[in-house]
């Protein structure tokens, strides 16, 4: 199994290079993308099974041993997040092909959508599998550099202006992360995560806290944690719809994964972390309340995205195995739910050609199947039982009650309030789309007028959306096994020894 781990980085990267050469033949690019993504998903799923059965799967690149060489580690957490992320990448890839806007030529220049998409996937895989801080930085950079290209795809006036802000803020955070990596090396002489986890306990506490806070600050900027979230609702909605869905589902969540990985492994805690609890509470409130007042549907969803990052931080701040389990379940749920919501809303907007909620009144009244999908996606995001959102929030709140201290219970109350407000926002969207008043200028019910897509591409878009939406039901139905796997993953994170032993121990016993 060890040999398969580097394939997850190499495969998409090589695929990206080949895809660039295949520029004149979009059909071949599509086939290549589908093959690479499906193959990666299969490898990731088998890694998840292997990591759950026999412990972390470690690949030492070029045979160099852990502290000096580059290691890729697939433990339960990274393999689980990887599998879900790749499944979403594949579904959104189907949607993007169906929708076609991302593949459009701009002034005779063939679209670089396909090569960039695969490079983005390579970056995601590398960031998730990386066993050292520096390659985590490189993985995040590969992912973000691809996202800079995707967000300015076609380079229209709006995308250049808003994309520039996104790029500048991301790059600022990236240089901050690089600085942090350099300071980690200057302090300890290593960047390997497993090695750092043993060495850092000898570092004087003030230096250790400074390193921890720098890491938190830079990763929190990438994860859009309040008060570092301002860039997100302004930039994400400007990209083509499937790309917005992909970014919303994955990019910030990879940063949250990096936060969970580094904070649990490098800075283990016994009791809840007050700073992170406050940040989590503020993120939930600011994001959801911001979402309440938006009219543009994509901006609204972007604010909700910010708000729900707070839930994952909440579990991490609890610093207990139950809290981490809640965080991981929430991470998995949120990746699928957020993608589903962006896709169904895009399908609804397509019927009217507008993203403003006030102009979308009754947009889906004549489309019962689409309305059904929107209803499921909205209820899932609003965490109504028995869907996956409820399972995830229940796990978090149970962990909070187990802890029971005053600060934790206060943030738990904020979490419940934010969940109810989210449900109110979801209700507002659905009611407006189904029963709302249509705008005055639009006399006849539109429907097919805007829809210029062929039947097959519509079918592809609807099919991909249905798959992503049904993930909310599947995850809820599989709540038992999911809770078991994430429970074991959280246990690994709190104990830390399985990861350390897999990376540092039994040297030489591997092929």
């Amino acid at each position: 199994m060890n040999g398969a781990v580097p394939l997850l980085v190499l495969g998409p990267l090589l695929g990206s290079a080949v895809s660039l050469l295949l520029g004149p033949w979009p059909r071949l690019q599509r086939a290549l993308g589908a093959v690479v993504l499906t193959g990666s998903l299969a490898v990731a799923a088998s890694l998840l099974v292997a990591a759950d059965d026999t412990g972390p799967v470690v690949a030492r690149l070029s045979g160099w041993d852990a502290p000096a060489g580059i290691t890729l580690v697939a433990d339960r957490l990274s393999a689980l997040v990887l599998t879900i992320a790749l499944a979403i990448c594949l579904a959104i890839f189907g949607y993007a092909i169906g929708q076609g806007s991302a593949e459009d030529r701009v002034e005779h220049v063939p679209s670089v959508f396909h090569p960039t998409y695969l490079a983005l996937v390579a970056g995601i895989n590398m960031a998730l599998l990386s066993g050292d801080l520096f390659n985590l930085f490189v993985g995040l950079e590969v992912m973000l550099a691809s996202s800079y290209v995707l967000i300015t795809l076609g380079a229209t006036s709006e995308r250049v202006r808003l994309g520039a802000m996104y790029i500048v803020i991301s790059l600022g955070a990236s240089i901050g992360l690089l600085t942090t990596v350099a300071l980690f090396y200057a302090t300890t002489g290593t960047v390997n995560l497993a090695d750092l986890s043993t060495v850092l306990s000898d570092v004087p506490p003030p230096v250790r806290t400074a390193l921890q806070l720098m890491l938190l600050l830079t990763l929190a900027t990438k994860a859009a944690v309040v008060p570092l979230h301002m860039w997100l609702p302004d930039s994400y909605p400007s990209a083509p719809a499937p790309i917005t869905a992909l970014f919303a589902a994955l990019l910030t969540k990879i940063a949250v994964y990096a936060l969970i990985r580094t904070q649990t492994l490098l800075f283990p805690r016994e009791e809840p972390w007050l700073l992170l609890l406050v940040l989590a509470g503020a993120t939930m409130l600011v994001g959801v309340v911001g979402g309440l007042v938006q009219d543009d549907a994509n901006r609204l969803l972007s604010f909700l995205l910010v708000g729900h990052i707070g839930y994952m931080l909440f579990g991490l701040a609890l610093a207990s195995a139950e809290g981490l389990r809640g965080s991981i379940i929430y991470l998995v749920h949120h990746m699928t739910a957020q993608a589903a919501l962006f896709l169904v809303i895009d399908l609804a907007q397509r019927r009217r050609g507008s993203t403003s909620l006030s102009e979308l009144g009754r947009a889906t009244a004549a489309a019962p199947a689409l309305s059904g999908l929107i209803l499921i996606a909205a209820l899932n995001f609003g965490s109504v039982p028995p869907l996956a959102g409820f399972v995830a929030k229940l796990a978090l709140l149970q962990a909070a009650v187990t802890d029971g201290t005053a600060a934790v219970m206060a943030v738990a109350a904020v979490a419940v309030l934010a969940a109810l407000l989210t449900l109110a926002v979801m209700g507002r969207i659905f009611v407006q789309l189904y029963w709302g008043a249509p705008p005055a200028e639009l006399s006849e019910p539109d429907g097919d007028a805007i829809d210029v897509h062929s039947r097959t591409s519509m079918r592809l878009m609807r099919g991909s959306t249905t798959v992503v939406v049904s993930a909310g039901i599947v995850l809820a139905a599989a709540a038992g096994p999911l809770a078991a796997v994430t429970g074991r993953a959280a246990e690994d994170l709190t104990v830390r020894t399985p990861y350390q032993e897999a990376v540092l121990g039994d040297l030489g016993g591997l092929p």
Partner: protein
Amino acid sequence: MNATNLSLALTIGVLYACGSYLLMQRALLRVVLGFVLFGHGANLLLLLAGGEARPVPHAGTTAPGEASDPLPQAMAITAVVITFGTTALLLALVHRAIVLHGDDLHASHTLPPPAGKGDQP
């Protein structure tokens, strides 16, 4: 971690300071320059993290104990490549912004896009 090169440390400080000042500017080209300085600062910091400069770390030329630490150098060259690539992308974006708008000012959602141009000479 013995003697640290003070002049290098001061240079890094100046690069970070100028870089963060330029990053705050509204004109995109200045922001790009700020990013370049910021990146240089971070790369020098990586180099400095390897301790004092010693002979080249090349097997057969220098004994392993006397050579300088090769790991931060490897990291610095990777970071140089990344900052180089992103700088090229940013410059392309600045060019595109100037082609599209005639200026390279940051988007500001407090001003409607056409009215924002009125402030500029």
